[in-house]
């Protein structure tokens, strides 16, 4: 049975992404780390690639690049259909609202994670000259998956709550995740970046790479799963009650 039959909303959403330009922007974000890695190699041939990649993940990727890239497709997945009123074609069907939300979430997460997988493998190869540890690459990919999933669920929910979800998302990323969570300890514990960073440092398990108040891997994973499930449940509830004028 094809994907069209198994997951028609997922199939439709992937076709929507393919037809739009948003996916190019995500690819651009995913390629950005490669540029940083190339500059690192060119400027410091003998530098510690693990330290560079770790700092890059903790300071730039997790708090800024990942949420901005995730924001694009997560708000696109349902937001565009609400804006152009094509949502009516999928909501007037005997399909559980929860399933609709989950397939939309999977589509945006899948594409963003795939783009970053290519980007991060290339970044790791460039930064380490292809001889870096697999653990480092695994930590980068796991931290990315955690971040994309959590940010994706959150932004999908936002797209159902406010009309200008992209703008609201950018403000949230730049003020909450990138600025306040960096400097205010209480907010740090309430930011997605901290959980994604915790996943990264725990999998990397390198004494030289430390994160203030890092959670255990299991705790960070549980928090992220709860966050994703709660955001998707709220999105489902919102979709059930929404008026579609």
């Amino acid at each position: 049975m094809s994907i069209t039959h198994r997951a028609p909303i997922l199939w439709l959403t992937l076709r929507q992404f393919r037809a739009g330009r948003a996916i190019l922007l995500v690819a651009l974000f995913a390629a950005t780390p490669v540029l940083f890695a190339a500059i690192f190699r060119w400027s410091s041939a003998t530098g510690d690639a693990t330290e560079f990649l770790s700092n890059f993940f903790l300071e730039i990727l997790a708090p800024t690049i990942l949420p901005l890239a995730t924001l694009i497709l997560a708000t696109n997945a349902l937001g565009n259909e609400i804006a152009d009123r094509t949502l009516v074609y999928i909501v007037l069907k005997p399909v559980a609202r929860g399933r609709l939300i989950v397939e939309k979430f999977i589509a945006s997460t899948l594409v963003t994670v795939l783009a970053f997988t290519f980007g991060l493998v290339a970044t790791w190869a460039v930064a380490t000259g292809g001889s870096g540890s697999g653990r480092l690459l695994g930590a980068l990919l796991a931290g990315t998956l955690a971040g994309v999933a959590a940010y994706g669920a959150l932004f999908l929910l936002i797209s159902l709550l406010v009309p200008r979800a992209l703008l609201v998302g950018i403000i949230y990323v730049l003020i909450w995740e990138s600025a306040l969570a960096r400097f205010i300890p209480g907010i740090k514990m309430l930011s997605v970046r901290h959980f994604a960073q915790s996943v990264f440092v725990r999998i990397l398990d390198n004494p030289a790479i430390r994160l203030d108040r890092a959670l255990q891997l299991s705790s960070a994973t549980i928090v992220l799963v709860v966050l994703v499930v709660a955001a998707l449940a709220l999105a489902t509830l919102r979709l059930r009650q929404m008026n579609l004028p």
Partner: protein
Amino acid sequence: MVEVQQQAEEQRPAAGYVPPDGPRTIEVTEVSKWYGDVVAVSNVSFAIGPGVTGLLGPNGAGKSTILKMLAGLLAPSMGTVRVLGEPVRANPRLYRRIGLVPEQEVVYPFLTGREFVRLNAILQRLPDPDAATAEAIARVEMTAAADRPVGGYSKGMRQRIKVAAALVHQPDVLILDEPLTGTDPLQRLQLIKLIRALGAEGRTVIVSSHILHEVERLADQILVLVNGKLAAAGDYRAIRDKIDEHARRVRVRADDPRTLAAALIRLPALESVRVDGDAVLIETGDVRDLYRAVPKVARELGIRLYEVAALDDSLASVFAYVTAR
């Protein structure tokens, strides 16, 4: 007690329409919808059964709002909407038996017509979506263009592919919001034939339009909506007769308006005739008789006609007649 209830029913401000007998597939009871201070629909009640029912009203009358409430897309601010005996809001199971052709033209432009209809068939969990898709596309006569992207379709083609998507699961209730918009005369004829056939099959079809003659060809039963209120409901011909009871104004432009006016004044239902430049302004109680007589009289007298125009045949005028009756 029964009499008191009947009196109370009669005194209710909103007009209501209930078919005299037979099943009621759609029941709208004292429904209102408002957005802030703006009232879109005000205390509307009606029930309809199988067959085609026209929902007629000028732009902004609240037709789309009512249809969206029937489809469960909007929650009424007050009142209840039941389709096939069930509440339609938050009841996705019911969508197995309902089809909607929405007002907006936008359809996923990156899908082909066939992919779009097939997606609907799959979401309806039909056992053989490919066969159902082919059948629905054939029914709207779009087979030749089915494998082209919807983005390249004309307005009329998009309307027809939307109808195919709404029909693919053979719903008992079909809600069509201005389905003839953008169609050319041939496409319109095909769609009207199809809509009538769907009604004849025993499905409940409700079709909105702001064009009087369109509805006349589509539906025998009509609901007339004006400013969010049900102004009239029932058999189309009875409502049309009510409209015809009022004097209508017609302007006839001709090369010899005075001779034409003198000849027309003998018509029995004529109420007034006035010459204004090259035009004759006529008020008549039988507009059909006038339309028959004018070319005949002009031909007999050798008068050339430039224009015969109804001055108050707009929908707004017609609704004014209906509401003032």
